[in-house]
């Protein structure tokens, strides 16, 4: 049953919903005239409202999580501490709301990452805005964020499906929001692939439900058969029906997180969508997808985890993950090499990055609980770092694209002479994606390799290392264009304050996490496995 005391536990989602409605409402209750100046003012109003709102919600969630400061039990009782106590009562804890939504540390960290990503995205959109209906643009970003937060904590199949749809449908619209030919193409393509993958995922869910009902004799009236832990309980040793369901669920979510061979849509969509939206799609929705995949596989199918190395246990989901990681790493990194469009190159790069994240899931092949926990930590750490880094990289490209009017690699030529701070920020992001120490990307990759090796998939780690070295070629091509090539024109590249701040914040985050990894690792270490295991 849902209780009143559960309300603080879903406070971030409630606040996001209120903010989204506020942003929508602010657009209709104000009388706007149709002059160009008032239209610009209207865009600004929506953008600032959503940016400030998302920033505040991020802070409230941070306070609620208690990661920075937890109120001592014996604190005096006054107005402030009462508010704080009630707020932190909804912080990370065990227990699942009505069997469908867990608010554990994993959800809390995911919320912080996702709301942070939405905040940076809306900051990027302060200047890079659509010409018409601005409020809907920003509200859609927030609606999508709600879906992602729900996705990260979902422990039930129906909840997972609804959250996936709530995440994806606003993103389809956002990808096609600018209405020009490329943007519309991206929107339609994303929508068609997304609908297809939802269908596959739903088929897998129905098979899992059918399996659970069968295990209870087929005529049960139990209504908790869609819960992940219930499926795990009934799974026993697993059978072919459950394996089929698992394969279909992996395929369905695989589309959302764009791993090879389900990646076909992503380069076109990333290239065509407005660049800040690309940043959002490639980071937040991918992170949420990985978290739901993690929860699904580890909670519902622990009996099918199998082994990543060749042998008796081949065929569990760790083998599938190892295989997908292998394909993703090779195809993503090799396909990025010949790209002439910087956005498309980064799109393939983020496909390749997904391959590294999969290594964190492969760690479940190890029989020791310690190695598995390390895998979880490496996975979450990689997602946090990747989200920050990629927003920085795409944000930098958005600034260049807006000022220069194109996002080919040659449009970056001589950026260092045209706008040095921007070139440096972009360079740091790209180097972190490539995994150069002391940036955060290096430690994330190192950690993932380590857990991959521990789990026995050493062949995969060796291939991952080789593809990392290959990837240096195309990352350094971007640097060469920015710092060595001669500029086309000496006209300085104008960088708007809002966008520059967003890129600056993410690069600062990359630097700080890279130099002091323990700041974030200390928090991520709290992620314990959810109940039911």
């Amino acid at each position: 049953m849902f209780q009143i005391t559960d309300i603080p536990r879903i406070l971030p989602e409630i606040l996001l919903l209120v903010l989204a409605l506020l942003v929508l409402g602010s657009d209709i209750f104000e009388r706007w005239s149709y002059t160009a100046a008032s239209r610009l003012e209207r865009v600004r109003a929506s953008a600032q409202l959503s940016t400030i709102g998302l920033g505040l919600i991020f802070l409230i969630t941070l306070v609620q999580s208690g990661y920075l400061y937890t109120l001592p039990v014996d604190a005096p009782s006054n107005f402030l501490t009462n508010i704080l106590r009630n707020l932190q009562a909804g912080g990370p804890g065990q227990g699942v709301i009505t069997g469908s939504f867990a608010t554990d540390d994993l959800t809390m960290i995911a919320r912080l990452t996702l709301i942070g990503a939405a905040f940076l995205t809306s900051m990027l959109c302060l200047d890079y805005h659509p010409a018409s209906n601005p409020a809907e643009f920003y509200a859609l970003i927030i609606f999508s964020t709600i879906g992602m937060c729900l996705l990260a904590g979902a422990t039930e199949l129906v909840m997972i499906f609804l959250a996936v749809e709530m995440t994806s449908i606003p993103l389809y619209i956002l990808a096609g929001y600018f209405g020009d030919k490329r943007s519309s193409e991206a929107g339609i393509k994303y929508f068609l692939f997304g609908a297809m993958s939802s269908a596959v995922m739903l088929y897998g869910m129905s098979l899992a439900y059918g399996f659970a009902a069968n295990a209870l004799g087929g005529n049960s009236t139990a209504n908790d058969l869609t819960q992940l832990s219930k499926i795990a309980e009934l799974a026993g040793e697993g059978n072919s029906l459950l394996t089929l369901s698992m394969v279909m669920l992996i395929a369905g979510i695989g589309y959302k997180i764009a791993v090879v061979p389900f990646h076909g849509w992503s380069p076109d969509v990333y290239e065509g969508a407005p660049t800040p939206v690309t940043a959002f799609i490639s980071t937040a929705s991918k992170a949420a997808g990985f978290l739901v995949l993690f929860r699904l596989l580890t909670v519902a199918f622990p009996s099918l985890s199998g082994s990543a190395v060749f042998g008796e246990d081949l065929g569990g989901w760790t083998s599938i993950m190892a295989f997908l990681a292998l394909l993703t790493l090779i195809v993503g990194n090799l396909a990025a090499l010949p790209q002439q469009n910087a956005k498309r190159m980064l799109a393939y790069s983020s496909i390749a990055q997904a391959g590294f994240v999969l290594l964190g899931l492969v760690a479940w092949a190890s029989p020791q609980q310690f190695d598995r926990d390390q895998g979880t930590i490496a996975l979450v750490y990689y997602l946090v770092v990747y989200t920050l880094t990629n927003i920085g990289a795409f944000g930098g490209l958005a600034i260049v694209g807006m000022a220069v009017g194109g996002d080919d690699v040659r449009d970056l030529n001589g950026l260092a002479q045209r706008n040095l701070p921007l070139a440096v920020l972009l360079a740091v992001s790209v180097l972190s994606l490539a995994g150069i120490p002391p940036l955060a990307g290096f430690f994330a990759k190192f950690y993932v390799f380590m857990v991959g090796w521990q789990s026995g998939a050493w062949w995969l780690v060796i291939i991952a290392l080789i593809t990392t070295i290959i990837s240096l070629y195309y990352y350094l091509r971007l640097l060469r264009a920015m710092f060595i090539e001669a500029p086309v024109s000496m006209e300085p590249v104008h960088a708007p304050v809002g966008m520059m701040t967003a890129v600056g914040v993410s690069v600062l985050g990359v630097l700080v996490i890279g130099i002091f990894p323990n700041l974030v690792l200390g928090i991520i270490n709290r992620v314990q496995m959810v109940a039911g295991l």
Partner: protein
Amino acid sequence: MLANYAFIGVFFVAALSFPVIPLLLAFLLRPKRPAPLKLSTYECGLEAIGDIRVQFKVQYYLYALAFVIFDVEVVFLYPWAVAFHKVGLYGFTAAAVFLAMLFAGLIYEWRKGALEWV
């Protein structure tokens, strides 16, 4: 564990052959005597005029959306009205909240100019 995948293979082969085999059988068995009249588009016995892929005003789409929402509203309210005496205050509040949400949507639609025919 690997044996489970044999089932998946069989499943996919069966799933593929399920639509393909009847289509193939129908193609092989059916008599083929095409005639111009037989191949023409049937439209209530009238001669078909022009192409079906014409452009039409996108505003019809907004009208259709608004219509569907209020149509569904009636579908929800009808059982509520029939059972009004049984559901009591709880039912009344729930229906009032539902109507308030729809009303907010209507206001949004109106202020956005979706109800004006341009």
